[in-house]
């Protein structure tokens, strides 16, 4: 399986990433992908912009471990993860997870699994500028409970 993880300030192009993921791999019948975007509102306040902080070194390590966990569990041909850091405005892309596989069930499951684990295991923190000033985004209980789904289903 080929996999690649990037943490970067630069934006990314979804088509180009998916094309690179499946290039020369003609047994890939399915690509599931996820793009996370900066929303213009959160917890009832307008969001003007956002700054993403991370833990250099650990970030790449954590993302690679999550990808390896997914590759252990599903038949995958390729995984691409990109997470942006730094200054972002509403509508901008934050994160990409793309997964290729011979069949769609594995691609969907692995893509959602990687996003769910990234949300609680990868060291990124968002600070929003809102009409009420700057604030660090609180973790959501729903992100913790999203992991329970995988624990129940596949005994992780």
């Amino acid at each position, binding site marked *: 399986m080929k996999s690649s993880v990037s943490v970067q300030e630069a934006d990314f192009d979804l088509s180009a990433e998916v094309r690179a993921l499946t290039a020369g791999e003609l047994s890939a019948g399915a690509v599931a992908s996820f793009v*996370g975007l900066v929303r213009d509102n959160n917890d009832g306040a307008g969001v003007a912009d956002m700054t*993403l*902080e*991370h*833990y250099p*070194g*650990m970030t790449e*390590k*954590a993302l690679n471990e999550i990808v390896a966990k997914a590759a252990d569990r599903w038949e995958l041909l390729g995984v691409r993860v990109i*997470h942006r850091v730094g200054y972002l405005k509403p509508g901008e892309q*934050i*994160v990409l997870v793309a997964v290729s596989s011979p069949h769609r069930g594995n691609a969907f499951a692995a893509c959602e699994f990687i*996003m769910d684990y*990234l*949300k*609680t*295991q*990868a*060291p*990124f*923190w*968002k*600070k929003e500028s809102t009409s009420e000033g700057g604030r*660090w*985004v*609180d*973790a959501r209980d729903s992100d913790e409970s999203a992991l329970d789904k995988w624990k129940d289903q596949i005994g992780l």
Partner: protein
Amino acid sequence: MITVLFFAGLREAVGTSSESLALPSEVNTVAALRDHLAGRGDKWSALASAKNLRAAVNQDMVPLTTAIKDGDEIAFFPPVTGG
């Protein structure tokens, strides 16, 4: 010596992103290190009052009960919010 790192709201609260210090002999877990640093008082008490404090040792996320030793890189931070 150990390296201690702070991120996000906790970094702002303690006013620094990293420091190096000699590991006191009685400090042998992440939780003991947190208590040791919080014991400095003032802004450092943020470490004691942090809800859901998270930690990593040598870049692996770990429970606060995890053992630490000389040479380790220990990070303290709030629950992560990427993605």
